[in-house]
């Protein structure tokens, strides 16, 4: 299930045949859990499946993220060391780049107002030793404020708690005893890494969304039981893996960036099955483009990102987002500069061509005027698009200010969009030491297949995959996601001064925590994959590079030599130089624990109504062309393996249109993936 802001998608996967069926319902505002239950009941009924036959449920949700963006989380307090209560408000002290010249704009307000930021005297020093004990009267007055103000949730973050959590634990114990209904989140329980601001901010996010998520999950479990569903429920996390609700509730921030991750996991899985393991995903929805690099079927990961200018540090997929989606507004500024996004018209009123009152030009309007979208077939024919409205708006907003004709305007805007998307992909590839030409571009979301061919040509990418059911990707990805947990402990020591035994002891502690969680989730031993990483940097640097370690034996054998050698090579790749003679620092030990859930079968496409030929023609301005021409239109559902389409062509399905440029070829593989081949070379599997 994928519970979004507007819609809930439920996908039922038959684990014998791999068949997929879908239900999409509009969220009712009052009771999210009831909406979900309704969708499930309907789908089971329709597919004639008994509730007891459901084996497991994986559940993705943006409830936590939306609670933050709409400021609808719990009333939250923050306990810090005394005289340090404003770490959350001061942040990095420097302004975010967008505020440097915008002197009338404010940073977003912290989630905890100052009256609820409570200092308690106590202090651990940089060695992890207690410098001052916890001051009980201070704590009791903090508890009195928390009770008086009817606070629902408390975040606790003390300096150096990642080295010694004793005071956080004392506060947690006392709070839980005094106010049993209070949510309490300790920074040391969720993020044992140095730097107090990101740690405080992440702890506050977790506390702020905890009651919201807990209420929702409890309600959902009750509803599911009422439906007769008895199987376990798993929650999808930003890391692209699932976990039990119990583990997620230890740190609800784990779900905060899970929105676009489901589709990336789905793409990695489906493309991997078809033999494509090195991918660039390109997901274009209504408001944004999300792109992520996948190497050997594993998506690249990141450790921190900002929401509303506050950092959240949780394991996450390294997804780069820009405001270039179908609803993104296209405009010309006062001096004739062409701008796309980040402002979006969203789904309502949406692009001008929806005829719902949208009076700004959007990328969807541009695509329609280019003839790339069929006005009668949009969203499976549910929305009739109005070409004349689109034309009027694009003429007024783009063509007239630039003094060019409509076709020059739309072709030009498409080119700018292509460049922005290519620039975003460059951020996750060339800027991180990877050549996009070594990857397959996977395009999905309503807009991905429209823009993929032009982007691939811009970047020199030789192959594009448009998987089947590009709109269901996220829910299917969530359904097939593995269990995933990350355990971290900061060390912060030069490698040369570190004894392998010290490291082995920490690795063992992390391992025990991982084993306990995987045991609780019932993951059998053969399905477990545990990988250790060292976050390394040159002594004196600030940004770490995660470097895989084969295991304890490797360290004992060569005393960190091969892992540091690996680090120098990675540094060279990422930053174009390395300094092997410089000392290297071990910042964090990291353990990635994965519980494989086993793959689901993919249904094989049978040749049914063999209708490989075009179903019609349409006048279209193909990207890169100077004028409209008649282009053959194919129905994707009718394509069968071994039939090759030669561009220019348009391949249509309910949720999108794939653009095939002149010189490119396209066809479907036995899984039903649409594959576009390199310019002029044809394609083969």
């Amino acid at each position: 299930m994928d519970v979004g802001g507007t819609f809930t998608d439920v996908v039922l996967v038959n684990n014998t045949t791999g068949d997929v069926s879908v239900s999409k319902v509009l969220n009712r505002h009052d009771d999210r859990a009831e909406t979900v239950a309704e969708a499930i009941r309907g789908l089971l009924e329709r597919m004639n499946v008994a509730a007891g036959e459901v084996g497991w449920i994986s559940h993705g949700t943006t409830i936590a993220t939306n609670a933050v963006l709409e400021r609808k989380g719990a009333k939250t307090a923050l306990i810090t060391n005394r005289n340090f209560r404003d770490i959350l408000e001061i942040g990095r002290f420097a302004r975010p780049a967008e505020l440097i010249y915008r002197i009338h704009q404010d940073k977003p307000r912290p989630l905890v107002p100052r009256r609820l930021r409570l200092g308690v005297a106590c202090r651990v020093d940089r060695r992890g030793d207690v410098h001052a004990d916890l001051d009980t009267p201070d704590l009791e007055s903090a508890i009195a404020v928390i009770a008086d103000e009817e606070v629902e949730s408390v975040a606790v973050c003390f300096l150096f708690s990642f080295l010694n959590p004793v005071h956080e634990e004392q506060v947690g114990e006392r709070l839980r005893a005094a106010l049993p209904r209070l949510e309490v989140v300790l920074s040391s329980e969720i993020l044992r890494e140095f730097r107090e601001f990101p740690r405080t901010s992440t702890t506050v996010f977790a506390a702020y969304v905890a009651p919201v998520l807990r209420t929702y999950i409890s309600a959902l479990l009750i509803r599911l039981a009422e439906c007769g569903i008895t199987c376990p429920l798993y929650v999808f996390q930003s890391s692209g893996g699932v976990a039990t609700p119990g583990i997620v509730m230890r740190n609800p921030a784990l779900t905060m960036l899970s929105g676009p991750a489901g589709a990336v996991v789905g793409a990695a899985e489906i493309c991997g099955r078809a033999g494509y393991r090195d991918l660039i995903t390109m997901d274009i929805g209504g408001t944004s483009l999300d792109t992520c690099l996948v190497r050997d079927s594993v998506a690249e990961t990141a450790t921190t990102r900002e929401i509303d200018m506050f950092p959240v540090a949780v394991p996450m997929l390294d997804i780069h987002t820009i405001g270039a989606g179908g609803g993104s507004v296209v405009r010309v500024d006062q001096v004739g500069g062409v701008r796309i996004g980040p402002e979006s018209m969203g789904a309502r009123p949406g692009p001008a061509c929806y005829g719902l009152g949208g009076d700004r030009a959007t990328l969807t309007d541009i695509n329609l005027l280019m003839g790339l979208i069929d006005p009668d077939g949009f969203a499976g024919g549910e929305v009739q698009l109005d070409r004349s409205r689109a034309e009027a708006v694009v003429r007024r907003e783009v063509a007239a200010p630039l003094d060019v004709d409509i076709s020059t305007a739309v072709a030009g805007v498409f080119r700018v969009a292509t460049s922005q998307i290519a620039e975003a992909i460059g951020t996750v590839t060339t800027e991180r030491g990877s050549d996009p030409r070594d990857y397959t571009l996977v395009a999905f979301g309503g807009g991905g297949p429209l823009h993929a061919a032009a982007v691939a040509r811009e970047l020199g990418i030789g192959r594009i995959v448009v998987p089947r059911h590009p709109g269901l990707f996220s829910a299917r990805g969530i359904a097939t996601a593995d269990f995933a947990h990350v355990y971290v402990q900061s060390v912060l020591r030069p490698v040369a001064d570190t004894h392998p035994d010290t490291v082995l002891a920490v690795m063992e502690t992390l391992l025990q925590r991982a084993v306990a969680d995987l045991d609780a989730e019932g993951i059998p031993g053969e399905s477990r994959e545990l990988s250790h990483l060292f976050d390394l940097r040159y002594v004196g640097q600030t940004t770490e590079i995660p470097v895989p370690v084969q295991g304890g034996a490797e360290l004992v054998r060569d005393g960190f030599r091969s892992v540091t050698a690996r680090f120098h090579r990675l540094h060279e790749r990422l930053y174009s130089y390395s300094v092997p003679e410089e000392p290297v620092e071990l910042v964090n030990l990291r353990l990635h624990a994965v519980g494989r859930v086993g793959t689901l079968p993919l249904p094989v496409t049978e040749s049914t109504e063999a209708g490989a030929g075009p179903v019609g023609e349409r006048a279209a301005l193909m990207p890169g062309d100077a004028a409209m021409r008649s282009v053959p239109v194919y129905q994707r559902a009718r394509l069968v393996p071994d039939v090759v389409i030669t561009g220019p062509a348009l391949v249509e399905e309910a949720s999108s249109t794939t653009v095939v440029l002149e010189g490119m070829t396209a066809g479907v593989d036995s899984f039903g993936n649409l594959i576009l081949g390199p310019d002029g070379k044809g394609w083969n599997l």
Partner: protein
Amino acid sequence: MTVDAFSLAVLHGSLIAIARDMKIMTMRTAYTQLWKEQGDLSCCLMNEDGEIIAQDPNGFPIHVTTMPLQLQGTIDAIGLDSLRPGDVLATNDPFIGGTHLPDVLIARPVFLEDELYAFACNRGHWADIGGMGPGSYSPATTDIHQEGIFIPPVKLFRAGHPDPGVFEMIMSNIRNRSTGLGDLRAQYASCETAQRRLHALASRYGLGTLREAMTEIITRSEWMTRARIAEFPDGTYRARDCLDGDGQSSRQTWIDVRIDIRGSDMVVDLTGSSEQSAGGMNCSHSAAASAVHYAIKSISDPENPPNAGSYRPVIVRTRPGTLVDARKPASMVGFGDVCYRVLDATMTALAGAVGDRAIASGSGSTGTAVIAGRRPREDGGGSFTTLELSSGAYGARAVRDGMNAIRYGPGNAGHIPIEADEMENPLFFEAYEIVPDTGGAGRFRGGNGFVRAFRVEADGARLCLCADRHETQPPGLCGGRPGAVARYVLDPGSERERVLGSKTPYLDLAPGTLVHLQSAGGGGYGNPGDRDPVRVAQDLKDGYITGRRAREDYGRSADPEE
């Protein structure tokens, strides 16, 4: 123009992305806290004439807009004809247009085959550049040579090969050789990346198109800025503001601003400012102009990316020999604080012309404190130098309170996280918090300053301060009250308490000394009597103001329930 609007949009976006990524890359690979945690460096791309095409959006205005004159001076000194592909230039000369000696400009001329068409530039504040004391930040310097090593325009690399003599000359004159080398490496590596990406653009679009786009980007920004300036009423607008003293005497020095607006042209005349100071409170014409340009960009066209065109309609006049156009051999150590005052006076003068767009003065200083010494033996020994920035608060705006405890103005260096600071330096923090009542009262309240207080747990440690707003308060606007002055105190509340002036040359600290650095607050906006009582009550409850201030400034009872 033959470059079409769409190619222009593509190229403009790409050029800004290159400048942005230069800084990100430098921060990721740097060694000094000042860069990796505090981000005290900036990048831009310039055309062959040394005009800014694209600024890194995260760059500091004071760094970026001083680069053109310094680069042009460098080219003049080295000779345009002697530039070759693979050369890397360096200088820190303030008198040709730089800031102060610790800010080192690295510039990479970019060629397509043999044709020069751009410069990739990276200016970073080095943690040490030699001179009188560690951190190279003593306000007691009376000439530039006490400040550190003076690097005239030189070639650091010739056709891709480092000049070992030049490297050695620089590294032999700074205190932290390995940090310096690591940082310099990060700086020129970012220029190499920029060069590679520019090359890709030039090969793809053709040099002619790229050059036209670069010209067009500047031209359009100039139109935009002119259109905005033309909306301001013609006239002459004046303001004055002062600095605490120059490190040699406590006599106030003045910034005098006279702005003439005629149509879309603006002349900002600073010639009435004080003579150049004997101490380090001076700046170059270029640095003063960059503070003026920042003020005008932020009230005229804050939304669009800045470049040379944003600054063209504004002419800044200075008189050689004044503190805003100091002559050799004046020390420029405190240029940052001088620039803050140029900004404050310019903004106050502009208020007469632009009304609600102007904002009240912020905390008005870099608040620079350098602490240096030797780490205790149990912490591994060795020397340390760290720079604490202790000033930050916004002035109030016409419809908003000033933000608390945040950088404002043309600089934007951040703080070192407390945990990183304590692990790297022998400091033990006792407070890092917003200080109530420091923001000036008003219909909208000035931002509150903050305190950063720490014990120095080292033998032979030394401290120097190069800051301001210790004697004069940041003024409010339109009836708003001024913000509180800054406070720099050693061992406050004890028998050994010692209040320090804003310019304090290196002084020895006894082990365990508590250093209390407290920022000035921002000025208020509008009459305090007009403040919404709900806001006063909220402020009281949140501890942004105390009961006393609620009574005295707003006539409110101290009881928040009332």
